[in-house]
């Protein structure tokens, strides 16, 4: 168990290091920066800007400063900061540096502002995906071969095939313009997140429904279900207590990729619905050449996806005692 976790952590550290290093040097290698404008700046101003963002340092020193954990600012490494400079900094200390575009903000400020919104959206999307997917999948498995089953399966296949921004467009026309129930875009209350959450979670609901159907069908045909029914347990109990646990196993292992997908999908959905989440900041930063912000979000999301995947694997072992951690 501990060995498994340690090994996982080691690989994670290597992954993260590769991502950070490669993207850092790519970023520095790019000609032209976020400060190039139409107008040529005065030499002294440019020097000032360069000094402010440490662009005048040797790239390797910049890299060390960016990665941390020591803060190389001003007077070299220092272990006690008395004059307001902090001894630690860089990614290892959870500090992504100043934003190149929003001059008065650090990347951490922007993430702190926007991440709760994105997480809220993601959670709502996941809730939509799970409730819809599980219930439709189970209903489909129990009524196998009926017209409802066929309809559900067609719906699920369509849901997987349709891009989420198309779902979003249809939803807006339906629930905002034709039947004015919900606000069209923006952010403020939970009502603003209902439609985006659904559009984001829709394709995943479809996939989960499919997995649930297959899993349940397989479990329902097994002997222990027949035993449970034969000893007179009510159908509901058999379903919820015996079948469900085995039937949702494929869904659990899909949750890891699903979270990654939802994070990715939020880039588009946040843009459509004008939600000021991390995803829309990331897209803007990429278009604005705000490299530090783009990198910060990339690193953050890599960590998030990795952590959630590990969590899902862990949950899997709790549900299915036959699986042991450690054997890959």
């Amino acid at each position, binding site marked *: 168990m501990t060995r498994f976790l340690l090994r996982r952590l080691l*690989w*994670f550290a*290597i*992954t993260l290091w*590769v*991502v950070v290093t490669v*993207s850092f040097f*790519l*970023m520095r290698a*790019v*000609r*032209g920066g976020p400060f190039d404008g139409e107008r040529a700046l005065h030499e002294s101003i440019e020097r000032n800007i360069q000094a402010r963002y440490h662009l005048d340092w040797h790239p390797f020193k910049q890299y060390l400063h960016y990665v941390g954990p020591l803060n190389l600012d001003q007077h070299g490494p220092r272990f006690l900061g008395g004059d307001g400079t902090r001894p630690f900094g860089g990614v290892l200390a959870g500090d992504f540096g100043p934003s190149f575009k929003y001059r008065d903000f650090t990347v951490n400020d922007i993430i702190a502002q926007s991440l709760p919104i994105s997480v809220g959206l993601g959670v709502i999307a996941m809730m939509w995906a799970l409730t819809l997917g599980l219930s439709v999948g189970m209903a489909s498995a129990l009524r196998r071969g009926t017209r409802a089953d066929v309809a559900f399966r067609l719906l699920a*296949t*369509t849901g*997987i*095939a*349709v*891009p989420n*921004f*198309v779902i*979003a*467009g*249809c939803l*807006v*026309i339906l629930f*905002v*313009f034709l039947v004015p129930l919900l606000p*069209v875009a923006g952010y403020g209350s939970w009502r603003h997140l209902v439609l985006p959450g659904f559009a984001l979670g829709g394709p995943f609901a479809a996939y989960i429904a499919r997995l649930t159907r297959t899993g349940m069908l397989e479990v329902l045909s097994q002997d222990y279900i027949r035993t449970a029914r034969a000893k007179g347990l009510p159908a509901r109990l058999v379903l919820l207590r015996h079948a469900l646990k085995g039937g949702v196993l494929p869904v659990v292992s899909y949750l890891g990729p699903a979270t*990654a997908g939802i*994070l*990715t999908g939020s*880039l*588009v959905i946040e*843009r*459509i619905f004008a939600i000021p989440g991390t995803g829309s900041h*990331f*897209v803007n930063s*990429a*278009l604005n*050449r705000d490299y530090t912000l*783009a*990198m910060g*979000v*990339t690193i953050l*999301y*890599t960590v998030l*996806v*990795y952590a959630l*995947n590990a969590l899902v694997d862990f949950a899997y072992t709790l549900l299915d005692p036959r699986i042991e951690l450690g054997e890959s």
Partner: protein
Amino acid sequence: MAKEGWDLGRRDYERLLSESLVHKGESLWRDAARRLRRNRAAWWSFLFLCAFGLTALLAPLFPLPSPVTLDLSIEPQPPVPPWVELGTHGFQPDYWELSGVDEALVSARRAVFGTWQTGPWLGTDGKGRDLLSRIVWGSRTSILVALAAAVCSLLIGVTYGALSGYLGGRVDNLMMRVVDILYSIPFIFVVIFLITIVNEYRTELEDRFGIDREVVFFVVIGAIYWLTMARVVRGQVLALRNTEFIEAARVLGASTARVLFVHLVPNVLSVVIVYLTLTIPAVMLFEAFLTFLGLGIEPPKVSWGLLAVDGSEMINPVRIYWWLVLFPSLAMASTLLALNVLGDGLRDALDPKLRGKD
């Protein structure tokens, strides 16, 4: 048989021969094709995709209006069904830079139809361009992207997976570990990051190497989607590696490359094809996704992603231009649906466990 008993003479041999001639052996592919045809949904999807591919290929030949002719004086026109207005004269041949074959097709079209063009059967968009024409021309871009990226992923994934499975041992372990690492990175972020960086060098790349942004785009997409392919192929190769025919090939002195590409790869082809049909819709979605974010195909070219963007930009509470959202979505959804259904059907058809059964 039992009545007469065996004498193992000439008569028996003849009988065995005639029996074996009746039960003709079936190749995997013929068997698969037969079973695919029996799966109605998959077969119709296949026919639909063929028709669709042909339409896309021959798009310049049809009497459609040009997909880029602007008419800024009018607002989006709702669809006019063909039985109300079949067509008009007034075709203007403006396109972006076309290839030689397309040029020839366009001139063939002008010879046949002259300036006649179809009416706005699916309506026009915010800049007065014909929607039907844009959907058909957009399908070409989408198909091209999907195919190019799929081929990229095919080349990398099959080679990588086959090599890893064949070499085995420590090399295999390391190679698969790399795949695991890549799996755990949320790729979209890295891709967006890469594309913005490539954008900085756009003019230079185009002038010096003749590489335009789309090529980079294909390669980048292909470079992501090979992971699953590599895993699947590796699993298959691992199972085949110790079979007799591979051993025989090696005993005869075949090189590693020969064993890989002549003996192993043809045997995993069925799995590869199934994953390919499932990769193509994913890639098409990804193209639409990136174009939606402003990082993919750029005007004046059209792709379905671009049409979806145009459509969703026209969503407003004052007037609903439903056709701008509905038709591109419909085109995209039906194609992706057909590809998915075909992929599932192929998987069933090529599944060796189901061979010979119906």
